[in-house]
């Protein structure tokens, strides 16, 4: 809990796939630095951002994401967008929270749980 009552110091919303924009992976790096400096972080993956959580990808982002999960980052992914992309829930990394009501959960995180938020 932060001093001003938020659960998470820094939240990131990612709407783009890993190879669509370098900013997505940049957010993962930023999150690593935040955690290493004692901050708590969360991610909400929506639209093409859901591709970040698919298993067995051959890119550098997935290793960064696995590492973040191990370090306690809370990753939430939109079920609607997983379905739209044809990604089964059995085909995503372990430790991911699946949101059945993505907009409700997204607003709740942004307004009540995340102290600061960045979007891409």
């Amino acid at each position, binding site marked *: 809990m932060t001093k001003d009552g938020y659960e998470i110091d820094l939240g990131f919303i990612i*709407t783009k796939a890993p190879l669509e924009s370098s900013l997505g992976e940049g957010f993962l790096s930023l999150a690593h630095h935040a955690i290493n400096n004692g901050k708590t972080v969360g991610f909400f993956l929506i639209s093409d951002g859901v591709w970040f959580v698919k298993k067995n990808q051959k890119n550098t982002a997935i290793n960064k994401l696995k590492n973040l999960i191990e370090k306690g980052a809370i990753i939430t992914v939109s079920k609607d967008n997983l379905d739209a992309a044809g990604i089964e829930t059995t085909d995503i990394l372990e430790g991911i929270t699946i949101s059945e009501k993505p*907009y*409700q959960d997204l*607003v*709740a995180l*942004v*307004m009540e749980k995340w102290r600061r*938020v960045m*979007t*891409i």
Partner: protein
Amino acid sequence: METGDDDMNNPETEKQPKILTILLIKGPYVSEAADIAFQTALKAKQMGYKVHVFLYLDGTWNSHLTGDKNYNNPGDWLKRLIRKEIQVTSCERCSNARDLTEENIIKGVQISGSTKLIDYLKDSDKVLTFGG
């Protein structure tokens, strides 16, 4: 009576809703940015927050979707925001640059200078930018 019950009926101590400003900088049909921005705004309003939407740069093109379409139409989402009394503002200079006027945009969208955006940023609890 428990302490604090009187306060609940006192308008001076009534809790004001938190304010969310959504800044949209991308036009329709290039990505899902407009859809995400407008659906987030609607949900936030439904959840009791005060919401402002500011259309900036190519985001102003969304205000031009006045017609009906038989496929996904961000203009319909925008009209719904207006009906739900969400304040939607389109950057004046960005609109002028694209020949967008009050005659050819969705009714209820206000064209206003970017100082309005500064006011929103100053007053908001949270700001989300979509389309970056």
